[in-house]
């Protein structure tokens, strides 16, 4: 029983992490058709912000957590201004390749100016421990991550349904031109989308760092690749699809982790991707993607 609950909360926390990242990708994609390849670098930059503030002025690791989230949000806004504005109305592939370039630039800049080897980041001790709930010992990180995902998802729903900015963002996903005709500034909507995606990436970064305890320039790639796959699995551009895709991918991963014999455990990621590929052959537009005929306007 305890094993089952532990694995469930593990699956929920991994799935939640992917869902946070996938939601950030989907919100940007739905508004400006940009596949943000540099999303992983938001995690990396959040981690490095923790590293530097710990070295310079922060003594209590608890303050590092908001710094990480703020840094990721700031980096997302910065990327938008510097790199993605020139390709705003370009075809999808152009934006994707630009973001790919940004990601390579950031990774290599960190390689040049910081270090090639992983560096340890201080994490509050209480995050590393376990917590006792109803007689069960559960890792603190996983419990926190699961609840954080729920809170963040609720917040996102409130933002999207109760505020003007959220309404504009949802409308922009359908037809940006009409939103601008209503007198809403395009820059503000896009900035909002990037800020939200950076915030969610920062949240995920906190938990990713709490697990690994160290930063290195390539650390953002693997989680974001999973988030991409989650987006494709759920149906690209759909927010609900991103959340469902992220959760199911995380659960599948934990399930395989728990059941695969040790000699094939190394192939886990390959098996996960192949299974997702099989799902996509069955439903090329993803689990929740709608089959849109060419030329249709929703």
């Amino acid at each position: 029983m305890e094993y089952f609950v532990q694995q469930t909360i593990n699956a929920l926390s991994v799935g939640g992490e992917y869902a946070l990242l996938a939601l950030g990708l989907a919100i940007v994609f739905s508004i400006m058709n940009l596949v943000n390849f540099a999303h992983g670098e938001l995690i990396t930059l959040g981690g490095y912000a923790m590293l530097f503030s710990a070295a310079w002025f922060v003594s209590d690791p608890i303050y590092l957590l908001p710094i990480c989230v703020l840094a990721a949000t700031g980096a997302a806004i910065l990327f938008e201004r510097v790199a993605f504005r020139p390709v705003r109305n370009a075809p999808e592939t152009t934006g994707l390749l630009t973001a790919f370039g940004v990601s390579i630039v950031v990774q290599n800049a960190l390689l040049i100016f910081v270090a090639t080897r992983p560096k340890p980041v201080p994490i509050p001790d209480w995050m590393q421990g376990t917590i006792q709930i109803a007689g069960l010992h559960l890792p603190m990180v996983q419990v926190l991550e699961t609840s954080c995902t729920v809170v963040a998802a609720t917040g996102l729903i409130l933002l999207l349904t109760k505020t003007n900015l959220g309404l504009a963002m949802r409308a922009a996903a359908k037809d940006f031109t009409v939103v601008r005709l209503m007198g809403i500034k395009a820059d503000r909507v896009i900035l909002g989308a990037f800020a939200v995606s950076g915030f969610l990436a920062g949240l995920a970064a906190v938990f990713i760092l709490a697990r690994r305890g160290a930063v290195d320039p390539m650390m953002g790639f693997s989680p974001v690749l999973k988030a991409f796959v989650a987006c494709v699995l759920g149906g690209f551009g759909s927010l609900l699809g991103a959340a469902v895709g992220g959760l199911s991918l995380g659960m599948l991963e934990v399930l395989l982790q728990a059941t695969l014999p040790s000699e094939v455990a190394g192939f886990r990621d390959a098996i996960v991707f192949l299974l997702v590929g099989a799902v996509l052959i069955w439903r090329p537009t993803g689990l929740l993607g709608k089959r849109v005929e060419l030329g249709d306007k929703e």
Partner: protein
Amino acid sequence: MGLVSATLLRSLAPICLLIAIAGLVMSIGEPYQIRVAYIFFINLTAVFALQIYMGGTGHASFGHAAFQGIAAYSVAILMTPLALKRLLIPDAPFGLAAVHLGAVPSILIALVLTGVIAYIVGLAISRLGGVAAEIATLAFLVIVHVIFTNWIELFRGPRAFYGIPSISNLYWGLGAAIIALLIAKLFRDSPYGVQLRAASDNLLAARAMGVPVERLRLLAWTLSGIVMGMAGILLATYLGTIAPSSFYFNQTFLIMAMLLLGGMRSVSGALCGTLVISIGSELTRSLESGPVIAGIDLPAMFGLTGFFLGAIIVLVMSFRREGLLGGEEFEDLFRQWKLKRKSAADETSADAPAKQEA
């Protein structure tokens, strides 16, 4: 004039350029420069391969380095002498530890195998289309890398596979690059290539004209996979040592930057981009090790090449989306230049009598 002879005629200039490079390096180059030129030809073959798919469909592919790896490892496993294989992969499955083939059958088998795998993967990717297809190519790269690094009995895992007979020389590289150039040009100008490019410009219109988009994407993907396999075979049979990391991200974004800089819509663009970046990365490589320039001892900067490649991709995408050549072939540019000169000449001759009247 038939398609084949027209393509041969149009490819004459770039082929002569490649032969001149190879001849020059062979006659005056030191071993180091010959090696650099050989790597240039490998990358050129790879970039032509990538151009076939990306130029045709307009979709990015991050997965092509995997084909290079599949072909390189196939050749390595088939061609390495038995004595060495007993040491490297004694427990290889399917009785492969006891197989030793000559160069020609090994290369043929490697190309066929790469083609078959490309076809099977392409079945899924050609159906997806758009962003999902691009991410699927990335997932394919990761899957192949995971298999290379974890299937230790067959691929030696993350450790290098060494002892592959080094049978190729610069002329192999030259030959492969010329073959790849011809295949890419033939495909681009063939009815299939034209239809596929039309579909990438306007999918709806092309479908309405009856273009079988999925089938053509699959054809382009498989063809470019096989050409990519040639690049992998070149690498394995020249260096004699391969490792999974040679066929992962660094290779992916190197050939991607080369293709994008020149312009992915034309074969000539692929050639130009590869030339410029090959020269540029030789220069930055010497900067990376921290040389002494004009009395200043520069620090070693690992990652500089990658930094420049990323910056090139961002700048090209922001300011000159179609690349240096703007998606035109050499012969198109030449024709436009001639037309411009002719019209300029016509204008001056038309102006002359008008002035006399006044």
